């Protein structure tokens, strides 16, 4: 089923032991869009991202990915939805016991890609993020920016329809941040939908993309070509 909007939140509520974290979140993201999800720390951005891949389930309301209501998908079938999404985690989540090549190849291994394809695709992706010369390095030998680029490479490897990035520039220096944003913009130009959570107003103001603002668990503004303080 092909739906025009890849992501849809329909009156979503989320609470943890009585604490309301999200309240009546309602938005859609179309194919090919680049959307910022902004708000201060604890506003609920990460919860929205966790709801997207069913790491969390809504207390009320529905979340759709490519027209599929996630509440109808059992956990053991969620891998089919997750393969449509490439997630860049806030804390990188690279596997320290695997080298750079193996960290990226994991995304292809899980979708059952053949070894020959993996050996073709992974070096290309690593070139794209500028890590081709670190292919057999261990993540512990990489800088913060390089680890973040490795996380992006892993998210891109299986050519997902959506890239979801949770504060991808939160733990790196401004120069590395700029490189990451250029990379995400390139990916978006190739047709991949990007949803990026951030509280970096410089990036948001510079990019002039659609901005969804979350405050105290509520969606308080949704502006195309918006800025951080709109």
């Amino acid at each position, binding site marked *: 089923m092909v739906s025009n909007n890849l992501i849809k939140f329909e009156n979503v509520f989320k609470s943890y032991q009585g604490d309301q974290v999200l309240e009546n979140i309602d938005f859609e993201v179309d194919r090919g869009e680049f959307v910022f999800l902004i708000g201060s720390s604890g506003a609920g951005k990460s919860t929205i991202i966790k709801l997207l891949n069913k790491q969390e389930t809504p207390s009320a309301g529905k979340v759709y990915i490519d027209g599929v209501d996630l509440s109808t998908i059992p956990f053991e079938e969620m*891998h089919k939805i997750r393969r449509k999404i490439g997630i860049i985690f806030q804390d990188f989540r690279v596997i320290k016991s695997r080298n750079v090549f193996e960290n990226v190849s994991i995304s292809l291994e899980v979708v059952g890609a053949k070894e020959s394809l993996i050996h073709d695709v992974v070096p290309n992706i690593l070139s794209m993020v500028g890590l081709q010369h670190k292919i057999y390095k261990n993540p512990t030998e990489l800088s913060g920016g390089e680890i973040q680029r490795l996380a992006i490479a892993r998210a891109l490897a299986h050519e997902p329809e959506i890239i979801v990035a949770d504060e991808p520039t939160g733990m790196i220096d401004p120069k590395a941040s700029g490189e990451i944003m250029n990379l995400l913009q390139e990916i978006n130009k190739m047709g991949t939908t990007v949803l990026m959570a951030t509280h970096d107003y410089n990036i948001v103001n510079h990019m002039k993309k659609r901005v969804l603002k979350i405050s105290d668990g509520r969606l308080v503004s949704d502006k195309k070509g918006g800025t951080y303080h709109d």
Partner: protein
Amino acid sequence: MTSLKSLIEFLKKEKVISLSSILAIFISFTLLSFIFTFLVFSNTSLNFLQKQVQVRVFFKDSFDQDQIKQIKSELENDSKVLEVTYTSKEDALRIFKDLSKNDPVLQESLTTNILPASLEIKTKDVKDLDFFYEEFYSKDYVESVKYLKDIKDKFQYYSTVVTIICLIITLLFFIVSFGIILSTIRINIFQKKDEIEIMKLVGASDDFVQTPFIHQGIVYSMVGSFFAGLLFTIILLTIYFTNFLGLKDTNYLYLVGNFKIPYLLFVVLLVAVINLLGYLLGKLGSKTAIKNYLKV
């Protein structure tokens, strides 16, 4: 993460845990093989003993030989009776002399007057022996009736008790072996907890995540069970070819009740069962171990 790569990685990293697990499973399966063999040998002995159980009626010397033969032919017409053998006083003396041929003094002193004539009665069903025992016991022409019922009953009773104990021990060994597999695989899973979570989040199916761990469980369990099977093959074939228990002559073992199979087929069956149990235990243990880690 291929199964083999992951297994080799874990074996290298956790040599002691891996070898201890395989050793513990080997011991469990060796004991299990012993119990299984013991039960089959015990059942075979019981069947053999049941076949030996008979009622032997010894007649008083005053009772006429023709009358005994008359009783014999009446018994032969009884549908419950399998076989009746008459042993005259002369036959009894001859048999006894044969048995005591190394004792010439005893042989000199023997005369036909000492040993009574007898009838040996075997029934189709062992339970019917009670009837014939009661039938002859009270007759005035009968000197005595010998019936090894007590021995048979006691053997059957102890055999049942031992079987129950063995089954309980078997169950305990299974629980222990299951626990060993579960713990070993859990250690490996725990070391790869983050990796499993990441794999799930990037779209790995449950099968993809759990297969290497299930293969590991099966390998551990089957290496243990294989060596236990091998050990018992050697033991059982040694018993057979040296004819240690006379089993090469009978060539059959009673598996359950009256169901008998050739001895060598039993060896094959034991090895097959042990390895199948090893496979099932490994699969079940590792599947249980990974279950909770798939809920991401």
